[in-house]
């Protein structure tokens, strides 16, 4: 049997990797999980801006970039490139880096500094032109 914490962790990993369906089968147990498609990635007309959620890669307290990290603060409306540092998820002194999964435009809306985020929670929505 799968315990609830296991299922929660699997769900979080699915969210983090954009997986919407998962089936595990063996002679003793069977588990089928399905999630709604990630919001914001619904098809839109070419050329219209749409935004995609940047999800949290772990559990931690949100810290924006540009504090004591020697990096410039992100200006809403500015361009970020895939792989660019957006902020951090802090647990104690350890900071897990959150990067832009794709090129995009810096949004105006961010979590409060110190806000607790879980796996797969939305850190921000990165506007993309496609």
């Amino acid at each position, binding site marked *: 049997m799968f315990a609830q914490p296991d299922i929660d*962790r699997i769900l979080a990993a699915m969210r983090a990797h954009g997986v919407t369906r998962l089936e595990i089968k063996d002679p003793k147990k069977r588990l089928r999980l399905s999630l709604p498609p990630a919001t914001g990635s619904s098809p839109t007309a070419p050329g219209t801006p749409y935004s995609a959620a940047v999800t949290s890669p*772990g559990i931690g307290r949100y810290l924006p970039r540009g504090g004591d990290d020697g*990096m410039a603060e992100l200006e809403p409306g500015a361009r970020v*490139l895939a792989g660019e*540092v957006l902020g*951090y998820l802090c647990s104690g002194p*350890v*900071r*897990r*880096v959150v990067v832009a999964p794709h090129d995009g435009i810096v949004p105006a809306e961010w979590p409060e500094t110190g806000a607790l985020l879980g796996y797969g929670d939305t850190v921000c929505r990165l506007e993309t032109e496609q």
Partner: protein
Amino acid sequence: MIEVLALPPVSTVQDLGRDGHWFQGLGRAGAMDALAHRAANLLLGNDETAATLEIPLTPAQFRFAARTSFALAGAACDATLDGRALPRIWAGIAEAGQLLALGGMRTGARIYIALPGGIDVPGVLGSRSTQLREGFGGFHGRVLMPGDLLKPMQADAAELPEAGLSLELPALWQPGEQAILLRALASTEHDSFTEAARAAFWTTPYAVTRQGNRQGFRLEGAPLDRNSAGELRSHGIVPGIVQVPGGGQPIIQLADSATMGGYPKIAAVIAPDFWRIAQARPGDQLRFVRVDVVEAAAAEVEEAALLEQWRVGLRAQRALCRSWC
């Protein structure tokens, strides 16, 4: 493996220093900012005594010859990996051929680069630190030059989240302070300085001058005069000692300190604050804050607790990474 493409000729391989040879006149050497050195090592899961590269002057450029994890810690210098900006404290993976570029330092004065397992240089007299004056240890006993190749002790990359890890280091400046505060103990000749000199020493700032290196910094501020004159007999000195030569302007001895000296000693900066001196730039102001032995001991306990917090936090992060990354 990492190749030095460009680097001013002042960078050395250092670890936590060479103990046990004081009696032969051999100083400790070792990382000037041991805290940043430890942070870089811990981020990679290295032993804290593993050798890192200490960079006191930029710009610098490195090319990764093979895929490897690495860590960077210390001064803010607009570091980029193949053009992508990195936080000033960062551990992550570099792919073969990627370029690490360090720009001008904006705050802080030293940067440490760690490789998996430490930088592979031979241990000499119990340490991998470069003994610059004597010309041994570290990388062939000398500063790094373009064309040099630094090898990691371990071929495998450390377990790290794809986007990398960072760590919170203590702030160099305390909030609202114009000067970097250095806690110090009164030393041997403290009471032989004039009352005005003692008052000035403990209350007014002293600026870091351009005359500074791994051996020590010359400071500039209110002149420090003594009531008594006369030469002292040569005696032991250690990193952190603040000496006052005849000119009245203090000198702080640092990681490459001599083991004996002869100038009057007004104070001794406590070891947990050495890293602050190491990260002070020419022009930065330092102010000495008097503490006693009990406070000095408490500061060591506090530092040990901070390091333990890093170790525990990073161990937990690695465990998480093993199951989910």
